[in-house]
């Protein structure tokens, strides 16, 4: 099972609704486990920053990252409606079963 750590920025002026986005990603990846970013067992870290400043503090994790920052995914502009699918697809690549 893919273990995904989630880290939000503090959402001071968000252009996207981070918690809603994560809820949607959870629906798209029902077999994955969503954990705190500090959890030592995570396979991949999902950073959810509300805007492109992307000031979310990075936890001590050296594994792979997927970064949502406003309407971008890994710095590439993305339509808001498409972000959940794009992120889910990227996260799934880190599932060892795949």
């Amino acid at each position, binding site marked *: 099972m893919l273990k995904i750590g989630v880290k939000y920025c*503090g*959402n001071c002026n968000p252009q996207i609704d*981070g918690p809603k986005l994560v809820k949607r990603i959870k629906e798209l990846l029902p077999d994955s486990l969503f954990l705190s970013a500090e959890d030592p067992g995570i396979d991949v870290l999902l950073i959810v920053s509300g805007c492109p400043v992307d000031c979310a503090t990075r936890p001590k994790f050296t594994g792979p990252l997927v970064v949502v920052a406003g309407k971008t995914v890994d710095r590439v502009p993305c339509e808001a409606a498409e972000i959940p699918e794009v992120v889910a697809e990227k996260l799934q690549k880190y599932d060892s079963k795949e």
Partner: protein
Amino acid sequence: MLTGQEYIESLKKLKPIIYYEGKKIESVVGHPLIQPHINSAAATYDVAFDPAFEDLGTAVSHLTGEKINRFTYIHQTPEDLVKKVKMLRMIGQRTGSCFQRCVGFDALNAVYSTTYDMDQKLGTSYHSRFVEYLKGVEKRDTMITGAMTDPKGDRGLKPSKQADPDMYVHYVSKNEEGIIVRGAKAHMTGMANSHEMLIMPTTALKEEDADYAVCCVIPVDAPGVLHIFGRQTNDGRKYNEIDQGNFKFGVVGGETLTILEDVFVPWDKVFMCGEYEFAGTLVERFASFHRQNYGACKIGLTDIIIGACALIADYNGTAKANHIKDKIVEMIHLSETMYCCSLACSGEGRKLASGACYVDPLLANVVKQNITRYIYEICRISHDIAGGIIATLPSEVDLKHPELGKYVQKYMMGVASVPVENRFKILRLIENMTGGTALVESMHGAGSPQAQRVMLARQANLEHKKELAKKLVDISD
């Protein structure tokens, strides 16, 4: 760390003596005048536990390495100062009102670095005493009132020259156990629902005013402490919901006049007692940290005001008019300009001798100077967009009245598809967030405009500017 609910429970254990209109308030929790301010302060606790906000709402203590509520943290880097600004904006967006806790936060930061400097210069041992106190604050997640402003009596006279010596807080005696303080602090934000107050001098002091150089911590319910809760614009509406505008979080911080009638303070809670040379440093640092905030929390509030204005334009059917669109853009411009200033004074933050980080004082004073103008301008525009109805709207009772309600519903309608009650709610929100008490806070909170201008004149490096002009046109003297 405490949750918002645990904070509220902790207040029930305190027994502060608080009066309003001559009557004693038996319990602040649940009292219609104070509960909104408690809800607002509770938001500062809750954000520490919500994954969406905790990156701003928490920090790692430089003293213990523990995760703590950011409101008890001593800034270590410019990034910390930026996080503070973002946190204040974020909470302001949630409460639409003052959440009070920044004053104590700024007081902690100012006292931390000033006691360090005092000890270096005077050989006192206030800093280690303060650090011990601070560790307890971090652990207990204490809500502290930053208590600087004295009643001041005749503004033209120094403390010791006042007709009544109690116009500024001073110590009247000291012994082996501690000190006795007397006087009062005015405009005390969040005092009614704090655990403790951190007393600081109001102004720079000279030797003849050494007795007024007092910095100490006092529980809000210590013997000899009495609070008188202040009136606010529209506080008679506290028993209605819609008419209050922001019924859940109220307006401004719920200020008190707090009287200290010979209050005993043990030495372990005393951080300045007679060291008049450092009163000015403490005031300047506290004021600069506090002025930094205004382009942060107030921007959370203007985010709501701008949103409310855009909504009322929708509800009134004016949203497509070019001048309305332009006025909204103007509000955004003013609001983000203030935010820029807060970010700038944070980004230019610097280390002090204690290792703690301090804002750029020149830029922090620019923040607050702009607030005294731009918030007024934003509120002026909001009144323009909302219409005269914010001054003449019938009451919530009449809106819901069995006989009158149908007339209010009929004639207070804007765009037909919008429920009249929604229009009422937004109009009341604009009215209460942009007038009276709320507006005055932008003028005088963290110091009147002239206080910033004095700092601007002092910090601006004018001689350097003169040299630049002379050099350009070859003047040498």
